[in-house]
């Protein structure tokens, strides 16, 4: 049963390059500074969390999300600071711990680790890893991170990582444990793994109906029970765009989200998205696009259906202007989120 008062609403960005009003593109540096501004706005509007992705490609500005989050930490008070996601497979668990523990210090305990295997693969050759070790790398590094997270001396050896013998890592956090999620794309194995480690789960639903994920949410809870691990409400992240009118939202989103998906699809041999597919995604699928009322109804439905504790909207896909991005965050925080809570409260009352 959804507890409306405990629901968290976040935004996430992959660090897409921002467009100027005339359609020209800003530099990656300008785009990074824009994210800091947006983090500040999101905090002022009272959103629960901002997540920043890690990519190593020309179309995304952020390769070092904790640095960007550190800047956001210095201009915000309440908002949690997450990565979306940290590609653990090609990272070093000790460094991951150190960076987040530092971010946690800077932000008075607001750092949130989101670990994933990533849906891009550029980081593998960049840091000298073999893509065919995809699963083994993640498993081993997660096991190491899990020990480091206890903030006690660690002894660990593996195939890919340095050996640690009774080794301490610093700085220690004030809370004693970094809040950690595992980002999941929908493979059953990943869900069971997250439950086995006792981590919170955030599912990336980037295509198709949210209904499809109901059995996966059940699987997470069943696995946690069977493994006698803690159970948390599941979080979901999906793409979206909100504008004052539905037509404007559809137009901007079709141009930008489609361009974004098509560009990625091109490298994977995936056919371009048709208008029909796009509209299906916005009506019943996983793109939350429209005016505040329409988006609120759809988010409320998803939260109720999957019994979520948190919903993150991925914003800024493609090349949107700063004004579009900022207006979207404002509408999401000031119109959509209160309306979602209202809809869900009515439903609770009706029950």
């Amino acid at each position: 049963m959804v507890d409306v008062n405990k629901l968290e609403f976040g935004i996430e960005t992959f660090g897409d390059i921002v467009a100027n009003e005339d359609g020209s593109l800003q530099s990656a540096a300008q785009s990074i500074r824009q994210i800091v501004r947006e983090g500040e706005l999101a905090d002022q509007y009272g959103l629960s969390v901002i997540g920043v992705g890690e990519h190593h490609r020309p179309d995304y500005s952020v390769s070092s999300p904790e640095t960007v989050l550190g800047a956001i930490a210095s201009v915000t008070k309440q908002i949690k600071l997450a990565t979306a996601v940290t590609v653990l497979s090609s990272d070093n668990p000790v460094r991951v711990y150190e960076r987040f523990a530092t971010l946690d210090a800077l932000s008075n305990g607001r750092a949130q680790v989101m670990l994933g295997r990533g849906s891009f693969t550029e980081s593998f050759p960049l840091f000298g890893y073999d893509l065919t070790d995809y699963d083994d790398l993640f498993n081993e590094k997660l096991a190491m991170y899990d020990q480091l997270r206890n903030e006690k001396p660690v002894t660990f050896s593996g195939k890919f990582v340095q050996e640690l013998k009774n080794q301490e890592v610093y700085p220690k956090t004030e809370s004693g444990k970094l809040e950690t999620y595992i980002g999941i794309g929908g493979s059953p194995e990943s869900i069971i793994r997250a439950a086995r480690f006792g981590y919170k789960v955030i599912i990336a639903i980037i295509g198709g109906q949210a209904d499809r994920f109901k059995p996966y949410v059940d699987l997470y809870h069943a696995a946690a029970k069977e493994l006698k691990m803690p159970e948390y409400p599941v979080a979901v992240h999906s793409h979206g765009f909100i504008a004052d009118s539905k037509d404007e939202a559809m137009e901007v989103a079709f141009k930008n989200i489609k361009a974004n998906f098509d560009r990625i699809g091109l490298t994977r041999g995936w056919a371009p998205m048709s208008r029909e597919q796009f509209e299906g995604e916005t009506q019943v699928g996983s793109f939350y696009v429209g005016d505040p009322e329409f988006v609120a109804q759809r988010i409320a439905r998803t939260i109720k259906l999957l019994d979520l504790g948190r919903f993150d909207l991925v914003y800024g896909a493609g090349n949107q202007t700063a004004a579009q991005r900022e207006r979207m965050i404002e509408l999401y925080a000031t119109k959509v989120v209160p309306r979602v809570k209202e809809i869900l409260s009515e439903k609770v009352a009706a029950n």
Partner: protein
Amino acid sequence: MAIKRVGILGAGKVGIVLAGLALKAGYEVRISGSGDVQKIALTIKTLVPGAIAAENADVVANADIVILAIPLSRYKKITPDLLKGKLVIDAMNYWWETDGIREEVLDPDSTSSEQVQAYFKDATIVKAFNHMGYHNLQEEARPAGDPKRKALFVTGDDKEAVDTVAHFVDTMGFDQVVHYNIADGIMTEPGSPLFGASLSLKDLTRIIDHFDQTEFGREVMAAKQK
């Protein structure tokens, strides 16, 4: 041959979606993962209740039709003998995120299903269920005659096997465009306008029939003439 029992090798996203459709269509379903049964037992029980989690050998021995739904880079981990004499649907594609560098997985001079057929030389391979995204497969299965029904491309060298699979595809909820040439599988490989597309019988037929006019079709032709 009447198909009553479906065996699925691969308990990932595609394998599980196909298991769900097969159960709904009334088949007896067995499914295996890469490790021992215990590893997938909870997944199968929760996601596709009614399907039987089993080891590869058990799945194949108790199947009238076998579906390969594992990453393409791993099919050679299955010994060719296991599928001897079996009717096998190849639902696999090269997918660089899981398979790595293409040249290490596939010979560039032929299509992926031709290579799968050459490896499992005593099995009869039919390519199907490979070109529609797994969530479309799950959401868009519809009964025959439904005006919104979508279609799948089915191809293989053995006419009888292809016809059997086409009928199977029908029972799973999709119309079919049928070819009797396994090399035509190239038309639905990654890079094709059909890969990832979810189309009606009419639209799928139109693109297949005029494949040489698509950009990808021209690239394929040019590569052949080299």
